Protein backbone atom coordinates (compact mmCIF):
# COMPACT_ATOMS: atom_id res chain seq x y z
CA UNK A 1 0.00 0.00 0.00
CA UNK A 2 2.82 2.34 0.83
CA UNK A 3 4.18 1.98 -2.69
CA UNK A 4 0.87 2.94 -4.30
CA UNK A 5 0.53 5.82 -1.89
CA UNK A 6 3.99 7.16 -2.66
CA UNK A 7 3.51 6.80 -6.39
CA UNK A 8 0.24 8.67 -6.28
CA UNK A 9 1.72 11.39 -4.08
CA UNK A 10 4.61 11.77 -6.49
CA UNK A 11 2.31 11.96 -9.48
CA UNK A 12 0.11 14.57 -7.82
CA UNK A 13 3.01 16.76 -6.80
CA UNK A 14 4.81 16.44 -10.12
CA UNK A 15 1.74 17.29 -12.14
CA UNK A 16 1.12 20.28 -9.92
CA UNK A 17 -2.39 19.10 -9.18
CA UNK A 18 -1.59 19.52 -5.51
CA UNK A 19 1.12 21.53 -3.83
CA UNK A 20 1.40 19.61 -0.59
CA UNK A 21 0.63 16.07 0.53
CA UNK A 22 -0.37 15.81 4.16
CA UNK A 23 0.43 12.32 5.37
CA UNK A 24 2.20 10.19 7.94
CA UNK A 25 5.93 9.65 8.35
CA UNK A 26 8.20 8.02 10.89
CA UNK A 27 9.80 9.73 13.83
CA UNK A 28 13.59 9.40 14.14
CA UNK A 29 13.57 6.06 15.91
CA UNK A 30 10.78 4.66 13.69
CA UNK A 31 8.70 3.80 16.72
CA UNK A 32 5.92 6.33 16.17
CA UNK A 33 4.28 8.00 13.22
CA UNK A 34 4.02 11.73 12.98
CA UNK A 35 2.34 14.09 10.50
CA UNK A 36 4.47 15.08 7.52
CA UNK A 37 3.95 17.70 4.84
CA UNK A 38 5.49 16.74 1.53
CA UNK A 39 6.00 19.52 -0.98
CA UNK A 40 8.87 18.06 -2.98
CA UNK A 41 8.16 14.97 -5.12
CA UNK A 42 11.62 13.71 -4.16
CA UNK A 43 10.48 13.34 -0.55
CA UNK A 44 7.51 11.05 -1.12
CA UNK A 45 9.37 8.06 0.29
CA UNK A 46 8.91 9.66 3.71
CA UNK A 47 5.25 8.68 3.54
CA UNK A 48 4.29 5.58 5.49
CA UNK A 49 1.12 3.67 6.17
CA UNK A 50 0.55 1.29 9.08
CA UNK A 51 -1.72 0.81 12.12
CA UNK A 52 0.25 3.46 14.00
CA UNK A 53 -1.23 6.13 11.75
CA UNK A 54 -3.66 7.30 14.40
CA UNK A 55 -3.67 11.05 13.88
CA UNK A 56 -6.67 12.61 12.25
CA UNK A 57 -4.90 14.80 9.73
CA UNK A 58 -8.04 16.58 8.58
CA UNK A 59 -7.21 18.98 11.40
CA UNK A 60 -4.60 20.59 9.14
CA UNK A 61 -7.22 21.50 6.56
CA UNK A 62 -8.97 23.93 8.88
CA UNK A 63 -8.61 27.67 8.76
CA UNK A 64 -6.44 27.68 11.87
CA UNK A 65 -3.54 26.50 9.74
CA UNK A 66 -2.98 29.49 7.52
CA UNK A 67 0.59 28.56 6.74
CA UNK A 68 -0.42 25.17 5.46
CA UNK A 69 -3.18 26.75 3.43
CA UNK A 70 -0.60 29.12 1.97
CA UNK A 71 1.33 26.19 0.54
CA UNK A 72 -1.43 25.60 -2.00
CA UNK A 73 -3.97 22.91 -2.74
CA UNK A 74 -3.49 19.95 -0.42
CA UNK A 75 -3.84 16.23 -0.85
CA UNK A 76 -4.54 14.42 2.36
CA UNK A 77 -3.89 10.84 3.38
CA UNK A 78 -7.04 9.89 5.23
CA UNK A 79 -8.69 6.91 6.82
CA UNK A 80 -12.45 6.57 6.50
CA UNK A 81 -12.92 8.00 9.97
CA UNK A 82 -10.80 11.02 9.11
CA UNK A 83 -12.82 11.52 5.94
CA UNK A 84 -15.94 11.79 8.07
CA UNK A 85 -14.38 14.89 9.61
CA UNK A 86 -13.52 16.29 6.20
CA UNK A 87 -17.18 15.78 5.26
CA UNK A 88 -18.35 17.71 8.32
CA UNK A 89 -15.93 20.51 7.50
CA UNK A 90 -17.39 20.68 3.99
CA UNK A 91 -20.99 20.71 5.26
CA UNK A 92 -20.04 23.57 7.55
CA UNK A 93 -18.68 25.58 4.64
CA UNK A 94 -15.04 25.49 5.73
CA UNK A 95 -13.92 24.62 2.23
CA UNK A 96 -15.28 23.05 -0.89
CA UNK A 97 -15.01 19.41 -1.86
CA UNK A 98 -12.77 20.27 -4.81
CA UNK A 99 -10.38 22.24 -2.60
CA UNK A 100 -8.83 19.06 -1.30
CA UNK A 101 -7.62 15.87 -2.92
CA UNK A 102 -8.54 12.97 -0.66
CA UNK A 103 -6.31 9.90 -0.79
CA UNK A 104 -8.54 7.41 1.00
CA UNK A 105 -6.78 4.55 2.77
CA UNK A 106 -8.60 1.29 3.29
CA UNK A 107 -7.98 0.45 6.88
CA UNK A 108 -8.05 -2.56 9.13
CA UNK A 109 -7.98 -0.53 12.28
CA UNK A 110 -5.41 1.46 14.19
CA UNK A 111 -4.05 1.31 17.71
CA UNK A 112 -5.76 3.32 20.42
CA UNK A 113 -2.51 4.95 21.53
CA UNK A 114 0.81 4.52 19.81
CA UNK A 115 2.47 3.47 23.06
CA UNK A 116 0.43 0.28 23.00
CA UNK A 117 2.01 -0.94 19.78
CA UNK A 118 4.00 -4.15 20.17
CA UNK A 119 4.43 -4.93 16.49
CA UNK A 120 1.06 -6.48 15.86
CA UNK A 121 -2.48 -5.15 15.62
CA UNK A 122 -4.65 -7.11 18.01
CA UNK A 123 -8.29 -6.32 18.85
CA UNK A 124 -7.48 -5.41 22.44
CA UNK A 125 -5.28 -2.46 21.44
CA UNK A 126 -7.80 -1.09 18.97
CA UNK A 127 -10.16 1.70 19.99
CA UNK A 128 -13.92 1.18 20.12
CA UNK A 129 -14.36 3.15 16.90
CA UNK A 130 -12.37 0.60 14.90
CA UNK A 131 -14.43 -2.34 16.15
CA UNK A 132 -17.59 -0.66 14.87
CA UNK A 133 -16.15 0.99 11.79
CA UNK A 134 -18.37 1.19 8.72
CA UNK A 135 -15.91 3.24 6.68
CA UNK A 136 -12.95 0.88 6.46
CA UNK A 137 -13.48 1.37 2.76
CA UNK A 138 -13.28 5.16 2.63
CA UNK A 139 -16.52 6.70 1.44
CA UNK A 140 -15.61 10.08 -0.05
CA UNK A 141 -12.37 9.98 -1.99
CA UNK A 142 -10.50 11.02 -5.10
CA UNK A 143 -8.24 8.00 -5.02
CA UNK A 144 -8.33 4.84 -2.96
CA UNK A 145 -5.25 2.98 -1.78
CA UNK A 146 -5.48 -0.62 -0.64
CA UNK A 147 -7.51 -3.78 -1.04
CA UNK A 148 -11.21 -3.60 -0.35
CA UNK A 149 -11.99 -4.47 3.25
CA UNK A 150 -14.68 -7.07 3.82
CA UNK A 151 -15.25 -6.16 7.43
CA UNK A 152 -18.86 -5.64 8.48
CA UNK A 153 -19.44 -3.84 11.75
CA UNK A 154 -21.71 -5.46 14.32
CA UNK A 155 -25.41 -4.64 14.05
CA UNK A 156 -25.48 -3.21 17.55
CA UNK A 157 -22.36 -1.18 18.32
CA UNK A 158 -20.24 -2.85 20.93
CA UNK A 159 -17.11 -2.02 22.82
CA UNK A 160 -15.79 -0.40 25.93
CA UNK A 161 -17.11 3.07 25.23
CA UNK A 162 -20.66 1.85 24.61
CA UNK A 163 -20.57 -0.33 27.70
CA UNK A 164 -19.38 2.51 29.87
CA UNK A 165 -21.98 4.92 28.51
CA UNK A 166 -24.65 2.36 29.25
CA UNK A 167 -23.24 1.80 32.68
CA UNK A 168 -23.22 5.52 33.45
CA UNK A 169 -26.76 5.90 32.14
CA UNK A 170 -27.92 3.23 34.54
CA UNK A 171 -26.38 4.99 37.50
CA UNK A 172 -28.10 7.57 39.66
CA UNK A 173 -27.77 11.25 38.95
CA UNK A 174 -25.54 11.83 41.96
CA UNK A 175 -23.25 8.95 41.00
CA UNK A 176 -22.84 10.40 37.53
CA UNK A 177 -22.09 13.80 39.03
CA UNK A 178 -19.46 12.33 41.31
CA UNK A 179 -17.94 10.42 38.39
CA UNK A 180 -17.56 13.47 36.18
CA UNK A 181 -16.40 15.83 38.90
CA UNK A 182 -13.66 13.34 39.69
CA UNK A 183 -12.69 12.85 36.06
CA UNK A 184 -12.74 16.56 35.25
CA UNK A 185 -10.83 17.44 38.41
CA UNK A 186 -7.69 16.15 36.68
CA UNK A 187 -8.11 18.54 33.75
CA UNK A 188 -5.08 20.79 33.39
CA UNK A 189 -6.70 23.13 30.86
CA UNK A 190 -3.99 22.50 28.30
CA UNK A 191 -6.75 22.49 25.67
CA UNK A 192 -5.13 19.63 23.77
CA UNK A 193 -8.66 18.25 23.28
CA UNK A 194 -9.64 21.43 21.53
CA UNK A 195 -6.47 21.90 19.53
CA UNK A 196 -6.44 18.37 18.18
CA UNK A 197 -10.12 18.39 17.23
CA UNK A 198 -10.63 19.01 13.51
CA UNK A 199 -14.04 20.48 14.32
CA UNK A 200 -12.80 22.99 16.90
CA UNK A 201 -11.69 25.37 14.21
CA UNK A 202 -12.74 28.69 15.74
CA UNK A 203 -9.90 31.14 15.57
CA UNK A 204 -11.00 32.65 18.85
CA UNK A 205 -12.38 30.07 21.26
CA UNK A 206 -15.02 31.02 23.80
CA UNK A 207 -12.53 30.19 26.59
CA UNK A 208 -10.35 32.99 25.34
CA UNK A 209 -13.10 35.58 25.49
CA UNK A 210 -12.59 37.52 28.66
CA UNK A 211 -15.07 40.36 28.47
CA UNK A 212 -16.88 38.75 30.12
CA UNK A 213 -14.90 35.67 31.04
CA UNK A 214 -17.39 33.01 30.08
CA UNK A 215 -15.28 30.07 31.08
CA UNK A 216 -12.96 30.44 34.02
CA UNK A 217 -9.40 29.80 32.93
CA UNK A 218 -8.44 28.35 36.29
CA UNK A 219 -8.08 24.60 36.37
CA UNK A 220 -10.30 24.23 39.42
CA UNK A 221 -13.26 21.86 39.41
CA UNK A 222 -15.74 24.59 38.55
CA UNK A 223 -13.74 25.98 35.65
CA UNK A 224 -13.01 22.48 34.40
CA UNK A 225 -16.66 21.45 34.45
CA UNK A 226 -17.73 24.51 32.57
CA UNK A 227 -15.02 24.00 29.94
CA UNK A 228 -15.73 20.34 29.40
CA UNK A 229 -19.50 20.80 29.20
CA UNK A 230 -19.11 23.63 26.73
CA UNK A 231 -16.69 21.67 24.59
CA UNK A 232 -19.10 18.75 24.47
CA UNK A 233 -22.06 21.01 23.71
CA UNK A 234 -20.27 22.66 20.81
CA UNK A 235 -19.68 19.26 19.25
CA UNK A 236 -23.24 17.99 19.47
CA UNK A 237 -24.34 16.73 16.06
CA UNK A 238 -20.86 17.32 14.67
CA UNK A 239 -18.54 14.95 16.51
CA UNK A 240 -17.64 11.90 14.44
CA UNK A 241 -16.16 9.93 17.36
CA UNK A 242 -12.67 10.03 15.87
CA UNK A 243 -11.38 9.90 19.44
CA UNK A 244 -8.51 12.32 19.00
CA UNK A 245 -9.49 14.37 22.05
CA UNK A 246 -9.31 11.43 24.39
CA UNK A 247 -6.12 10.15 22.81
CA UNK A 248 -4.46 13.52 23.24
CA UNK A 249 -5.63 14.18 26.77
CA UNK A 250 -2.50 14.12 28.91
CA UNK A 251 -4.54 13.22 31.98
CA UNK A 252 -6.76 10.48 30.49
CA UNK A 253 -10.17 12.10 30.82
CA UNK A 254 -12.66 9.73 29.10
CA UNK A 255 -13.97 12.32 26.66
CA UNK A 256 -15.12 9.57 24.32
CA UNK A 257 -17.90 8.72 26.76
CA UNK A 258 -19.42 12.16 26.64
CA UNK A 259 -18.97 12.41 22.87
CA UNK A 260 -20.50 9.00 22.23
CA UNK A 261 -23.39 9.77 24.56
CA UNK A 262 -24.20 12.88 22.57
CA UNK A 263 -23.82 11.01 19.27
CA UNK A 264 -26.43 8.59 20.61
CA UNK A 265 -28.73 11.45 21.58
CA UNK A 266 -28.46 13.00 18.13
CA UNK A 267 -29.11 9.65 16.47
CA UNK A 268 -32.16 9.09 18.61
CA UNK A 269 -33.61 12.59 18.39
CA UNK A 270 -32.76 13.61 14.84
CA UNK A 271 -31.81 10.32 13.19
CA UNK A 272 -28.52 11.80 12.11
CA UNK A 273 -24.97 10.49 11.94
CA UNK A 274 -22.31 13.03 11.14
CA UNK A 275 -19.72 12.76 8.43
CA UNK A 276 -21.35 10.60 5.77
CA UNK A 277 -22.87 13.02 3.31
CA UNK A 278 -21.29 16.31 2.40
CA UNK A 279 -24.62 17.68 1.18
CA UNK A 280 -26.62 17.31 4.40
CA UNK A 281 -26.50 20.09 6.97
CA UNK A 282 -25.48 19.20 10.53
CA UNK A 283 -28.53 18.96 12.81
CA UNK A 284 -27.74 21.91 15.04
CA UNK A 285 -27.81 24.46 12.25
CA UNK A 286 -31.17 23.35 10.92
CA UNK A 287 -34.43 22.31 12.58
CA UNK A 288 -37.64 20.51 11.94
CA UNK A 289 -41.05 21.72 13.15
CA UNK A 290 -41.68 18.10 14.05
CA UNK A 291 -38.80 17.67 16.50
CA UNK A 292 -39.96 15.56 19.42
CA UNK A 293 -39.14 16.05 23.06
CA UNK A 294 -40.87 15.32 26.32
CA UNK A 295 -39.33 17.72 28.78
CA UNK A 296 -40.46 21.18 27.65
CA UNK A 297 -43.51 21.87 29.77
Amino acid at each position, binding site marked *: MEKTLRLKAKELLESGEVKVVIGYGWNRSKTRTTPVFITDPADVDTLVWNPLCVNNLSLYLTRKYKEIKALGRPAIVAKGCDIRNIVVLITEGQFKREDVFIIGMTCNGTVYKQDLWKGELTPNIMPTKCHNCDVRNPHVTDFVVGEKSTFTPPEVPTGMVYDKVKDLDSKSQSERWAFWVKEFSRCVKCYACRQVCPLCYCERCITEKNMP*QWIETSAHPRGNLSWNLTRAMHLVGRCTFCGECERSCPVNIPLNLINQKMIGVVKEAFDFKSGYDEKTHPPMIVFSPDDKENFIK
Partner: protein
Amino acid sequence: MADKILKKADLGKLIESVTGKGGRFVAPTTDSRQIVFKKVKSAEEIATDYILARNSFKEFLFPQTEVVAEFTLGKDTVDMRGVEVHAPQTVIFGARPCEAASLKGMHALFTWDFIDEFYTKREDNTVVVTVGCTKADDACFCTTVNLSPASTEGADVYLREAGESYTVEAITDKGKKFVEAHAAVFGSGSVKADPLVMPEKIANIDLAKVSERLKDKTHYDDKVWPKLTRKCIGCGACTFVCPTCRCFDIVDEGTAFEGERRKNWDSCQYDTFTLHASGHNPREHQHQRWRNRFMCKFNFFPEKFSGKGCVGCGRCVRVCPVRLDITEVMEEFSK
Protein backbone atom coordinates in the same frame (compact mmCIF):
# COMPACT_ATOMS: atom_id res chain seq x y z
CA MET B 1 26.23 9.04 55.28
CA ALA B 2 26.56 6.72 52.34
CA ASP B 3 26.02 3.72 54.54
CA LYS B 4 22.48 4.76 55.39
CA ILE B 5 19.80 2.61 53.90
CA LEU B 6 16.02 2.72 53.66
CA LYS B 7 14.23 -0.60 53.56
CA LYS B 8 11.34 -0.59 51.12
CA ALA B 9 9.27 -2.27 53.81
CA ASP B 10 9.86 0.79 55.98
CA LEU B 11 8.38 3.26 53.51
CA GLY B 12 5.11 3.13 55.40
CA LYS B 13 6.90 4.15 58.56
CA LEU B 14 8.54 7.05 56.73
CA ILE B 15 5.16 8.23 55.50
CA GLU B 16 3.74 8.01 59.02
CA SER B 17 6.73 9.82 60.38
CA VAL B 18 6.24 12.66 57.89
CA THR B 19 2.48 12.92 58.02
CA GLY B 20 2.51 12.45 61.80
CA LYS B 21 4.27 15.79 62.04
CA GLY B 22 1.58 17.37 59.87
CA GLY B 23 3.50 17.17 56.61
CA ARG B 24 2.34 15.92 53.24
CA PHE B 25 4.02 13.05 51.49
CA VAL B 26 3.97 13.22 47.72
CA ALA B 27 4.91 10.22 45.63
CA PRO B 28 4.18 8.63 42.26
CA THR B 29 0.98 6.67 42.47
CA THR B 30 -1.42 5.11 40.00
CA ASP B 31 -4.39 7.23 39.02
CA SER B 32 -6.59 6.63 35.97
CA ARG B 33 -4.11 4.26 34.33
CA GLN B 34 -1.25 6.71 34.75
CA ILE B 35 1.59 7.22 37.21
CA VAL B 36 1.00 10.56 38.86
CA PHE B 37 2.63 12.57 41.65
CA LYS B 38 0.01 12.83 44.34
CA LYS B 39 -0.34 13.10 48.07
CA VAL B 40 -0.21 9.56 49.45
CA LYS B 41 -1.17 8.17 52.82
CA SER B 42 0.26 4.68 52.69
CA ALA B 43 3.18 2.82 51.16
CA GLU B 44 0.86 0.58 49.14
CA GLU B 45 -0.17 3.57 47.06
CA ILE B 46 3.38 4.26 45.91
CA ALA B 47 4.17 3.00 42.44
CA THR B 48 7.44 1.16 42.10
CA ASP B 49 7.57 0.23 38.45
CA TYR B 50 7.66 3.48 36.52
CA ILE B 51 9.95 5.60 34.42
CA LEU B 52 8.52 9.00 35.18
CA ALA B 53 5.30 10.32 36.60
CA ARG B 54 2.92 11.88 34.07
CA ASN B 55 3.13 15.25 35.81
CA SER B 56 6.18 17.07 37.02
CA PHE B 57 6.26 17.62 40.77
CA LYS B 58 6.42 21.36 40.13
CA GLU B 59 2.71 21.60 40.90
CA PHE B 60 3.47 21.11 44.59
CA LEU B 61 5.73 24.17 44.57
CA PHE B 62 3.92 26.16 41.94
CA PRO B 63 0.31 24.98 41.79
CA GLN B 64 -1.59 25.09 38.56
CA THR B 65 -4.06 27.53 40.07
CA GLU B 66 -3.85 29.39 43.36
CA VAL B 67 -5.46 32.37 45.02
CA VAL B 68 -2.95 35.16 45.61
CA ALA B 69 -5.33 37.87 46.78
CA GLU B 70 -8.98 38.52 47.49
CA PHE B 71 -10.93 41.67 46.81
CA THR B 72 -14.20 43.35 47.63
CA LEU B 73 -15.54 46.18 45.54
CA GLY B 74 -17.54 48.94 47.20
CA LYS B 75 -19.20 51.91 45.57
CA ASP B 76 -15.97 53.89 45.39
CA THR B 77 -13.62 51.53 47.10
CA VAL B 78 -11.54 48.50 46.35
CA ASP B 79 -10.54 46.42 49.31
CA MET B 80 -7.64 44.16 48.38
CA ARG B 81 -6.41 41.55 50.82
CA GLY B 82 -3.43 39.26 50.55
CA VAL B 83 -3.83 35.62 51.41
CA GLU B 84 -1.55 33.44 53.42
CA VAL B 85 0.71 31.13 51.47
CA HIS B 86 -0.36 27.54 51.86
CA ALA B 87 3.05 25.94 52.38
CA PRO B 88 2.83 22.70 54.33
CA GLN B 89 5.94 20.66 55.07
CA THR B 90 6.26 18.48 52.01
CA VAL B 91 8.31 15.50 51.01
CA ILE B 92 8.52 14.76 47.30
CA PHE B 93 9.48 11.11 47.15
CA GLY B 94 10.50 9.21 44.05
CA ALA B 95 11.31 12.16 41.84
CA ARG B 96 13.79 11.43 39.08
CA PRO B 97 17.22 13.10 38.91
CA CYS B 98 16.30 14.87 35.68
CA GLU B 99 13.28 16.72 37.02
CA ALA B 100 15.02 17.67 40.26
CA ALA B 101 17.64 19.45 38.17
CA SER B 102 14.95 21.95 37.18
CA LEU B 103 14.77 23.42 40.68
CA LYS B 104 17.80 25.67 40.39
CA GLY B 105 16.30 27.51 37.46
CA MET B 106 12.90 27.67 39.10
CA HIS B 107 14.42 29.24 42.17
CA ALA B 108 16.39 31.73 40.11
CA LEU B 109 13.28 32.83 38.30
CA PHE B 110 11.00 33.17 41.30
CA THR B 111 13.64 35.18 43.21
CA TRP B 112 14.80 37.26 40.28
CA ASP B 113 13.47 40.84 40.43
CA PHE B 114 10.77 40.00 42.94
CA ILE B 115 10.73 37.40 45.66
CA ASP B 116 7.66 35.32 44.98
CA GLU B 117 6.79 34.03 48.42
CA PHE B 118 4.20 31.71 47.01
CA TYR B 119 7.10 29.79 45.56
CA THR B 120 9.91 30.38 48.04
CA LYS B 121 7.92 29.54 51.15
CA ARG B 122 6.89 26.24 49.63
CA GLU B 123 10.39 25.58 48.43
CA ASP B 124 11.73 26.15 51.94
CA ASN B 125 9.33 23.57 53.28
CA THR B 126 9.95 20.94 50.63
CA VAL B 127 12.41 18.09 50.68
CA VAL B 128 13.06 16.45 47.34
CA VAL B 129 13.99 12.79 47.50
CA THR B 130 15.12 11.47 44.13
CA VAL B 131 15.54 7.86 43.12
CA GLY B 132 18.10 6.98 40.45
CA CYS B 133 16.48 5.42 37.38
CA THR B 134 16.61 1.72 36.69
CA LYS B 135 14.43 2.08 33.63
CA ALA B 136 14.32 4.37 30.62
CA ASP B 137 12.38 4.64 27.40
CA ASP B 138 13.11 6.06 23.97
CA ALA B 139 11.85 9.50 24.98
CA CYS B 140 14.39 9.89 27.80
CA PHE B 141 17.33 12.10 26.83
CA CYS B 142 18.91 13.33 30.07
CA THR B 143 22.36 12.20 29.00
CA THR B 144 22.06 14.39 25.93
CA VAL B 145 21.61 17.50 28.08
CA ASN B 146 24.52 16.56 30.34
CA LEU B 147 22.52 14.99 33.14
CA SER B 148 22.15 11.36 34.07
CA PRO B 149 20.33 9.03 36.46
CA ALA B 150 23.28 9.59 38.78
CA SER B 151 22.88 13.40 38.88
CA THR B 152 22.09 14.81 42.28
CA GLU B 153 21.52 18.41 41.19
CA GLY B 154 18.42 19.79 42.89
CA ALA B 155 17.93 16.73 45.09
CA ASP B 156 18.02 16.98 48.87
CA VAL B 157 18.30 13.24 49.31
CA TYR B 158 19.38 10.86 46.58
CA LEU B 159 18.31 7.22 46.73
CA ARG B 160 19.27 4.27 44.64
CA GLU B 161 17.40 1.04 44.29
CA ALA B 162 19.16 -1.84 46.00
CA GLY B 163 16.94 -4.89 45.91
CA GLU B 164 14.60 -4.63 48.88
CA SER B 165 16.22 -1.41 50.06
CA TYR B 166 17.43 1.95 48.87
CA THR B 167 20.87 3.34 49.46
CA VAL B 168 20.50 6.81 50.99
CA GLU B 169 22.68 9.79 50.34
CA ALA B 170 21.81 13.13 51.88
CA ILE B 171 22.95 15.84 49.49
CA THR B 172 21.96 19.17 51.02
CA ASP B 173 21.68 20.38 54.60
CA LYS B 174 17.96 20.18 54.24
CA GLY B 175 18.40 16.58 53.20
CA LYS B 176 20.67 15.80 56.13
CA LYS B 177 18.19 17.32 58.55
CA PHE B 178 15.43 15.27 56.96
CA VAL B 179 17.35 12.03 57.41
CA GLU B 180 18.14 12.97 61.01
CA ALA B 181 14.56 13.95 61.76
CA HIS B 182 13.36 10.54 60.64
CA ALA B 183 16.43 8.68 61.87
CA ALA B 184 14.32 5.89 63.31
CA VAL B 185 13.17 4.88 59.84
CA PHE B 186 16.55 4.90 58.14
CA GLY B 187 18.74 1.93 58.94
CA SER B 188 22.38 1.43 58.38
CA GLY B 189 24.19 -1.30 56.61
CA SER B 190 25.88 -1.95 53.38
CA VAL B 191 23.87 -2.99 50.37
CA LYS B 192 24.85 -3.07 46.77
CA ALA B 193 22.89 -0.65 44.61
CA ASP B 194 21.22 -1.94 41.46
CA PRO B 195 22.76 -0.68 38.25
CA LEU B 196 21.40 2.56 36.86
CA VAL B 197 20.03 2.60 33.36
CA MET B 198 21.52 5.33 31.24
CA PRO B 199 19.52 6.49 28.24
CA GLU B 200 21.69 6.47 25.18
CA LYS B 201 23.14 9.86 24.30
CA ILE B 202 21.67 11.00 21.00
CA ALA B 203 24.64 10.91 18.70
CA ASN B 204 23.89 13.83 16.43
CA ILE B 205 23.17 16.35 19.15
CA ASP B 206 25.79 18.75 20.32
CA LEU B 207 24.32 20.94 23.05
CA ALA B 208 27.11 23.52 22.84
CA LYS B 209 26.49 23.88 19.15
CA VAL B 210 22.78 24.29 19.67
CA SER B 211 23.23 27.14 22.09
CA GLU B 212 25.94 28.68 19.92
CA ARG B 213 23.70 28.68 16.88
CA LEU B 214 20.78 30.10 18.82
CA LYS B 215 22.89 33.06 19.95
CA ASP B 216 22.95 34.36 16.42
CA LYS B 217 19.42 35.64 16.10
CA THR B 218 19.48 35.60 12.31
CA HIS B 219 17.88 32.19 12.51
CA TYR B 220 14.66 33.90 13.64
CA ASP B 221 13.07 33.99 10.24
CA ASP B 222 14.78 30.89 8.99
CA LYS B 223 12.57 28.54 6.98
CA VAL B 224 13.75 25.73 9.17
CA TRP B 225 11.26 26.74 11.87
CA PRO B 226 8.05 26.33 9.88
CA LYS B 227 9.52 23.25 8.25
CA LEU B 228 10.28 21.50 11.51
CA THR B 229 7.29 22.58 13.52
CA ARG B 230 4.50 22.89 11.00
CA LYS B 231 2.67 19.98 12.58
CA CYS B 232 2.47 21.63 16.01
CA ILE B 233 -1.19 22.02 16.90
CA GLY B 234 -0.61 24.63 19.59
CA CYS B 235 -1.97 22.79 22.60
CA GLY B 236 -0.10 23.49 25.80
CA ALA B 237 0.38 19.89 26.86
CA CYS B 238 4.19 20.00 26.54
CA THR B 239 4.49 23.10 28.68
CA PHE B 240 2.16 21.80 31.36
CA VAL B 241 4.06 18.59 31.91
CA CYS B 242 7.47 20.25 31.59
CA PRO B 243 9.38 20.53 34.89
CA THR B 244 11.09 23.75 33.82
CA CYS B 245 8.14 25.61 32.28
CA ARG B 246 6.89 28.16 34.76
CA CYS B 247 4.94 30.85 32.92
CA PHE B 248 1.79 32.01 34.60
CA ASP B 249 -1.06 34.41 34.12
CA ILE B 250 -2.87 36.52 36.69
CA VAL B 251 -6.65 36.50 36.43
CA ASP B 252 -9.48 37.89 38.51
CA GLU B 253 -12.44 35.69 39.17
CA GLY B 254 -15.63 36.63 40.90
CA THR B 255 -18.73 38.74 40.74
CA ALA B 256 -19.24 42.47 40.47
CA PHE B 257 -18.83 42.79 44.23
CA GLU B 258 -16.12 40.42 45.32
CA GLY B 259 -13.69 37.92 44.01
CA GLU B 260 -10.22 36.53 44.04
CA ARG B 261 -7.06 37.05 42.11
CA ARG B 262 -5.51 33.85 40.84
CA LYS B 263 -2.16 32.81 39.52
CA ASN B 264 -2.72 30.23 36.80
CA TRP B 265 -0.32 28.30 34.63
CA ASP B 266 -0.07 29.75 31.15
CA SER B 267 1.64 28.48 28.05
CA CYS B 268 3.74 30.19 25.40
CA GLN B 269 2.12 27.84 22.89
CA TYR B 270 -1.18 29.76 23.03
CA ASP B 271 -1.65 32.63 20.63
CA THR B 272 -3.23 34.70 23.40
CA PHE B 273 0.04 34.48 25.34
CA THR B 274 1.53 37.36 23.39
CA LEU B 275 -1.58 38.92 21.89
CA HIS B 276 -1.53 42.67 22.44
CA ALA B 277 -4.57 44.74 23.31
CA SER B 278 -4.11 46.51 19.98
CA GLY B 279 -4.75 43.25 18.18
CA HIS B 280 -1.16 42.86 17.08
CA ASN B 281 0.50 39.58 17.88
CA PRO B 282 4.30 39.47 17.74
CA ARG B 283 4.16 35.68 17.60
CA GLU B 284 1.39 35.28 15.13
CA HIS B 285 2.25 31.85 13.82
CA GLN B 286 2.57 28.61 15.67
CA HIS B 287 6.15 28.02 14.51
CA GLN B 288 7.14 31.31 16.12
CA ARG B 289 5.64 30.15 19.41
CA TRP B 290 7.47 26.90 19.08
CA ARG B 291 10.67 28.73 18.33
CA ASN B 292 10.14 30.71 21.50
CA ARG B 293 9.84 27.56 23.58
CA PHE B 294 12.98 26.14 22.06
CA MET B 295 14.84 29.42 22.56
CA CYS B 296 13.67 29.58 26.14
CA LYS B 297 15.02 26.11 26.82
CA PHE B 298 18.39 26.54 25.17
CA ASN B 299 19.05 30.25 24.97
CA PHE B 300 17.17 32.87 27.01
CA PHE B 301 16.73 30.92 30.15
CA PRO B 302 20.17 29.34 30.58
CA GLU B 303 21.79 32.66 29.69
CA LYS B 304 19.76 34.72 32.09
CA PHE B 305 19.51 32.37 35.04
CA SER B 306 22.30 29.90 34.45
CA GLY B 307 19.76 27.25 35.24
CA LYS B 308 18.85 24.32 33.06
CA GLY B 309 16.22 25.16 30.49
CA CYS B 310 15.74 21.53 29.52
CA VAL B 311 16.48 18.55 31.73
CA GLY B 312 15.81 15.84 29.18
CA CYS B 313 12.93 14.12 30.98
CA GLY B 314 11.18 13.59 27.64
CA ARG B 315 7.69 14.34 28.96
CA CYS B 316 6.97 16.75 26.12
CA VAL B 317 7.87 14.07 23.61
CA ARG B 318 5.64 11.45 25.21
CA VAL B 319 2.66 13.72 25.63
CA CYS B 320 2.69 15.41 22.22
CA PRO B 321 -0.40 14.43 20.21
CA VAL B 322 1.55 14.82 16.95
CA ARG B 323 4.83 13.47 18.27
CA LEU B 324 6.82 16.63 17.68
CA ASP B 325 10.12 15.60 19.18
CA ILE B 326 12.28 18.36 20.66
CA THR B 327 15.39 16.24 20.13
CA GLU B 328 14.78 16.19 16.40
CA VAL B 329 14.91 19.98 16.45
CA MET B 330 18.04 19.88 18.61
CA GLU B 331 19.54 17.60 16.03
CA GLU B 332 18.79 20.08 13.27
CA PHE B 333 20.46 22.84 15.26
CA SER B 334 23.54 20.73 15.91
CA LYS B 335 24.37 20.67 12.24
